[in-house]
C-alpha cells in the first residue's frame, strides 16, 4: 500500500472510532485481511507498545503505520490519528448544538456499542495468533480478570506478563 492509501485506511479507522482501540477492527480488516501488509502478531505488538508507553490508547495506529511503512508510515499513522481531532473543532463550532440532540446521541451510542461488538470479534484472530500455549492462555485470562476486578495499570500487566514469560522460558517451561 502507498502512503496515501495507508493514511485513508487508518483515517477510516480513527474517524469511525469513539474510543482508543475501537478502530482496531476496521484497521485489521483492511491491513491484515484485505491488503496483507500487517500481521495479527504485529497488531498485538502495536497494542503492547501503546499500553506500555505514556499517551492515549489510540496511538497504536502510529505503531501500526510504522510496521507497514517504517518512519513514513508512523508519521502517516500520527496524521490519521490527529485528523479527526482537528476536524472536530470546526464541526463542534458549527453543529455543536445538534450534537446535544437526543437523536444524534442515540445514533452515536449505537455506533459505539457496535464498535465494542466488532472489537470483540477482532480479538478472535489476535488471540488465535498470540495464545499459543498454556502460559499465554493463563496470562490472557489473568489480564482480563485483573483489569475487571482491580483495574491495575496496563503497563504493570504488560511488564508482569513479559517477566512471567521470560522466566518460564529461562526455566525451559515454554519454548516461544
Amino acid at each position: 500500500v502507498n502512503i496515501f492509501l495507508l493514511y485513508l485506511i487508518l483515517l477510516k479507522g480513527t474517524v469511525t472510532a469513539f474510543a482508543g482501540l475501537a478502530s482496531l477492527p476496521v484497521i485489521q480488516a483492511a491491513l491484515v485481511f484485505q491488503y496483507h501488509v500487517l500481521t495479527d502478531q504485529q497488531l498485538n505488538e502495536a497494542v503492547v507498545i501503546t499500553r506500555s508507553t505514556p499517551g492515549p490508547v489510540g496511538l497504536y495506529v502510529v505503531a501500526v503505520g510504522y510496521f507497514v511503512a517504517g518512519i513514513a508510515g508512523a508519521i502517516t499513522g500520527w496524521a490519521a490519528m490527529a485528523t479527526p481531532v482537528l476536524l472536530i473543532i470546526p464541526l463542534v463550532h458549527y453543529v455543536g448544538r445538534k450534537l446535544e440532540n437526543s437523536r444524534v446521541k442515540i445514533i452515536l451510542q449505537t455506533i459505539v456499542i457496535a464498535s465494542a461488538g466488532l472489537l470483540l470479534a477482532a480479538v478472535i484472530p489476535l488471540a488465535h495468533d498470540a495464545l499459543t500455549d498454556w502460559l499465554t492462555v493463563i496470562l490472557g485470562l489473568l489480564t482480563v480478570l485483573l483489569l475487571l476486578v482491580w483495574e491495575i495499570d496496563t503497563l504493570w500487566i504488560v511488564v508482569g506478563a513479559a517477566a512471567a514469560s521470560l522466566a518460564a522460558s529461562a526455566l525451559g517451561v515454554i519454548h516461544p
Partner: protein
Amino acid sequence: LSAARKTALGANSYQALTCFPETVVNTGFPAAMAALNAGANPSPIASKRAAMHGAVAAAVGITTKTCWTIAHPYFKGRDGQIRVVLIAAVAFALYVFAHIPPIWVLILAAGVGAFLPEPRP
C-alpha cells in the same frame, strides 16, 4: 568445534565459543566458565522473543477488556442492558459470520440508531 561438542555445550554456549574464537579458549576451565556463562545468559533476541510472547498475551486480554470499557457506560437500566447485548451481539455476528466489513457494520449501526427509541432509565 565438533558436532559432539556442540550438542554437549548447548546452542547458546556453542554460539558463544564460535562467535569469538580468537578471544575464547575452547578447552579446559576457561572454556567451561565461558560455556556456563553463555548458557546462563540467553541471547538478547531469545529474551526479547520470550518477553514479547507474554506481552502479546496480555495485549489480547487488554483488548478484550476494552470491549467492556467501551460498552460499560451504556449498560445501565434494563433497556440499556438489553440494547448493549443486542447491538454488540448483532455487530459481532455480522462481522464474524456474515463477513460484512466493519465500516458497513458501523454505518448500519448508525442507521439503526436513527430509529431506536430513547432507553428508559
